[in-house]
């Protein structure tokens, strides 16, 4: 088996939000970094934004849903529980996300104390705060200073992109209700920054951003990693992480998807950053005689505690042109009025509400995010006249509990294009999550009513058979960090309890998911982990036991 890149100091598997940032940091620290990604580069000109069929492409080849795309660089998801959203390629899912960038709040790190239905994090908000601030400057987060719903924080490096009419409408509604609102922090530029041009409000954020105004790891982090000397091997599908007799990781075996040839990449230290589903899958595929239940899985927690956020989306149509086909898709107002636990509501944990735009004409003519189909036939054109550009949506993002039964395992029937087992995903809401979601839907309806909406559509993601199958962007919790090797997979520094030179850094690391999009937190954790590794690499490369033990 060949080893084309030679031995690395650090091997990083996956080049998404966490892996890409760590590659840049570790390479700039002078370490010899090799990155493997199962996908290729996707160039800005590959994206659909300049083509008249852009909406069709977004629904198919550029769909955020992996099982609709079905591309060879993807791995399919064997599930009847959800519509899994992710991207496999250089930059990971930052190619097709919304770049929504709020922070977790201090109580999100202390759910064990607060109610005991989820664990405390082994670190606090204050531990992570400086890394949040630094990442914001690195990626160019747009926001408005002074939000009283979060702790004091460093200044935003740029203003957010335009809100305009839709943001004003949602803001008026929230003011009428007397609820918290604030301009949503987004990793999208409201003015030029770091050699990147400001957003021009094209609104097709979910097919990636060809201009670079939206933070995309493949455009903004990987090039810096390569400039600092990192090596990136694309179309490299890792089939297992190998360990030696002492239980230390020695590297990974990967398949070159173009040739089918198997290679071995050796390294002193391995970082696994494949997202909450891909990381679990690879750990389970890496089972060996010494760790037969999967690598780093003596706790039996690998793949468990999968969190996605409970979700619903409510649309309201008003008698006013909101230009809802223009501007950053989820870049106007966030309401954190209900983000903290209040048991008098009938559940623990909280949720946030986001004012969201509605995309292009085809998408709106199919019912937009709620997918509640408008009339067809003679009534359709009148419907379009009275609804197009006049609606907005309120997205409910709920903090779902980590349940051991919500789980990633290996499929017994479905394989990827290389013949490797696909992940099987089982995900169901706890009764607490259901109550939270029902309450959240009612509050979202309150908002669109307060905007004087005349037509309200509730998208609860319950399908015809009565089952809740949400679109799941956020893959969290399946290799969580903790203080106790019996209940967690890694130390507070992301070091696998069972494999001292294996670091797991991505959404799977999060013990709880909070009530907001997680990429800012994943990125802050990645920066913190990278700084730790860089500062202690001489010891860590020889580590035979966990750092914190």
């Amino acid at each position, binding site marked *: 088996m060949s080893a084309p890149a030679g031995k690395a100091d650090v091997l990083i598997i996956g080049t998404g939000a966490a892996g890409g940032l760590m590659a840049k940091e570790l390479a700039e620290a002078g370490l010899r970094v090799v990155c493997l990604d199962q996908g290729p580069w996707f160039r800005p000109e590959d994206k659909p934004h*300049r083509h008249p069929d852009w909406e069709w492409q977004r*629904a198919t080849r550029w769909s955020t849903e992996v099982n609709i795309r079905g591309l060879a660089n993807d791995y399919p998801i064997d599930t009847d529980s959800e519509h899994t959203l992710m991207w496999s390629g250089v930059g990971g899912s930052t190619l097709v996300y919304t770049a929504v960038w709020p922070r977790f709040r201090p109580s999100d790190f202390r759910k064990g104390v607060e109610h005991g239905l989820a664990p405390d994090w082994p670190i606090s908000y204050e531990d992570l705060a400086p890394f949040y601030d630094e990442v914001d400057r690195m990626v160019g987060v747009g926001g408005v200073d002074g939000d009283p719903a979060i702790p004091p924080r460093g200044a935003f490096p740029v203003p957010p992109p335009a809100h305009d009419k839709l943001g004003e409408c949602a803001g008026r509604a929230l003011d009428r209700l007397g609820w918290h609102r604030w301009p949503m922090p987004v990793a999208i530029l409201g003015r030029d920054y770091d050699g990147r041009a400001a957003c021009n409000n094209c609104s097709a954020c979910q097919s990636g951003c060809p201009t670079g105004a939206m933070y995309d790891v493949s455009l903004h982090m990987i090039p810096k990693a390569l400039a600092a000397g990192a090596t990136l091997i694309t179309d490299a599908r890792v089939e297992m992480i190998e360990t030696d007799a002492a239980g230390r990781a020695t590297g990974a075996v990967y398949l070159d998807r173009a040739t089918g040839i198997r290679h071995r990449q050796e390294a002193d230290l391995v970082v696994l950053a494949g997202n909450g589903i891909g990381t679990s899958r690879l750990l389970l595929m890496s089972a060996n005689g010494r760790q037969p239940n999967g690598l780093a899985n003596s706790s039996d927690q690998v793949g468990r505690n999968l969190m996605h956020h409970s979700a619903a989306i409510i649309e309201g149509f008003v008698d006013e042109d909101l*230009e809802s086909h223009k501007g950053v898709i989820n870049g106007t107002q966030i309401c954190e009025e209900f983000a903290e636990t209040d048991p008098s509501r009938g559940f623990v944990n909280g949720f946030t509400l986001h004012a969201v735009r509605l995309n292009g004409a085809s998408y709106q003519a199919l019912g937009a995010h709620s997918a509640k189909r408008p009339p067809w036939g003679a009534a359709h054109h009148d419907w379009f006249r009275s609804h197009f550009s006049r609606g907005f949506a309120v997205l409910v993002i709920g903090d779902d509990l980590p349940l051991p039964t919500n789980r990633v395992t290996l499929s017994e029937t479905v394989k990827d294009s290389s013949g490797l087992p696909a992940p099987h995903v089982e995900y169901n809401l706890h009764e607490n999550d259901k109550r939270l979601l029902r309450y959240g839907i009612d509050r979202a309806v309150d908002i669109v009513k307060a905007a004087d909406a005349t037509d309200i559509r509730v998208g609860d993601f319950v399908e015809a058979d009565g089952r809740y199958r949400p679109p799941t962007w956020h893959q969290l919790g399946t290799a969580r960090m903790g203080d106790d090797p019996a209940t967690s997979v890694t130390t507070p520094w992301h070091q696998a309890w069972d494999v001292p030179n294996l670091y797991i850094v991505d959404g799977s690391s999060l013990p709880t998911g909070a009530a907001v999009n997680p990429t800012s937190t994943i990125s802050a954790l990645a920066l913190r982990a990278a700084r730790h590794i860089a500062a202690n690499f001489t010891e860590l490369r020889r580590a035979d036991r966990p750092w914190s033990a």
Partner: protein
Amino acid sequence: MPASINEKTGWEDTNEMTQDSLSAGATARILAGFADAIFPGDDFFPPAALVGAQGVMAARLRERLGSGAPERLAAALAARGGLENPTAAAARLEAEDYRVFDTARAFLTFAYYESPAVIAAIRALGHEYNDAPQPKGYAMRPVDPSRDAPAVPRGSYVATEAVTRVDLSGLDFLAVRP
């Protein structure tokens, strides 16, 4: 957020007529009739068949669902009177085989709204609407905190040291712990 198409299932079941029982001309007329039933046109909007949306739909059905997919749709419509009364046939298909109907409708919708004539109609309604998102984008008012943030900020958070156990006594359903 999910794409608004519902494909992959249902198409294998539409076997009211065999693929070769309709002539090419009849298939074309049925698909054109279906297109106009869904988007018949009015003073602003052109009928779907006039802009050729059914052809784009058929090509994409073939690309995504297999070479015989357009013919299967035509057969399903023909079995419901699609040559004689396209609107009634579409309504029957919607009622009797929703997944097939909805997929065809979704494919047709993408084809219709990307056609230049329909984009011109959207503009004629007074909307600024680009053929494609880039390179032009849209000019919008930049964020102004005095307009886009609340005049009197509201909101709070529980600080790390202030987090304490909440009273769960009213949440009986939590007795079954995860």
